[in-house]
């Protein structure tokens, strides 16, 4: 096993472990903080895939932004710790059926796909390449992204205004 394989398994364990805490923790704050490690592990995996720009964007937006938003959101709720996180189990049999069908499909796809395992072409400067692609080949999605962001901004302003009137 070479070093990068070890690093990969290390990051994978962090990601999955943190993900398990997010799902199974009874304490909503613990679940939110565990997201940090899940995001961090995923960022590491992106680096191993040579997608360093995506990795750092992941840290910047998900850890720096979304996670802060989630935490603020949790703290807006009153009596954070008393929230009943667990809902009762109903309809066990149909659920098991659906889940196993889904899992079977996924595993089937996983085994039947001819995975391409060629070595990745080394990218010199990913950021420059991405910038170039955004402004040439993917110009329309790029400009549409700004409209989406504009819509989100307007939505945010509306929420803020409503809070003021109330």
């Amino acid at each position, binding site marked *: 096993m070479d070093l990068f394989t070890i690093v990969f398994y290390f990051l994978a364990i962090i990601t999955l472990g943190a993900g398990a805490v997010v799902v199974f923790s009874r304490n909503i704050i613990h679940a939110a903080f565990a997201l940090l490690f899940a995001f961090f592990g995923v960022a590491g995996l992106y680096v191993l895939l040579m997608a360093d720009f995506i990795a750092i964007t992941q840290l910047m937006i998900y850890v720096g932004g979304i996670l802060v938003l989630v935490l603020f959101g949790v703290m807006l709720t009153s009596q954070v710790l008393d929230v009943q996180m667990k809902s009762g189990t109903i309809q066990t049999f149909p659920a098991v059926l659906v889940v196993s069908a889904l899992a079977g499909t996924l595993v089937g796809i996983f085994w039947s796909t001819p995975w391409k395992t060629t070595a990745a072409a080394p990218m010199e400067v990913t950021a420059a*390449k991405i910038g170039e692609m955004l402004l040439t080949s993917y110009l329309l999605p790029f400009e549409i992204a700004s409209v989406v962001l504009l819509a989100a*901004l307007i939505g945010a*302003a509306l929420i803020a205004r409503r809070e003021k009137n109330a």
Partner: protein
Amino acid sequence: MLESYLPIFFMIAGGIAFGVVMLKLNEFFGPRRPTEEKFSTYESGMEPVRTARERFSVKFYMVAVLFILFDIEVVFLYPWAVSFRELGYQGFVTMFVFIVILLIGLYYVWRKGALEWD
């Protein structure tokens, strides 16, 4: 390229190891004389009143929402800043359109008073 990320991995590991060693040293040298008062929450000398985990103002949430939106914009701007000179005039104009659309948003938010902290 991957090799240049290796030091970061080791730095994080080294930083954690340093912290653990210092805390262990502290544990070794420091006394341990727990009393009930010592472990009660510090509230400027008064008896602690209720828990600190109360609800927070929605203003904090608003700041975070605004931050994310502009953060995403910044993420788009960075690759552009690296490559815009090769793209020349055309690259500049497309980014100009992108920024102007977002500045309209900023102007709207400003006029709506969402940037005020009152």
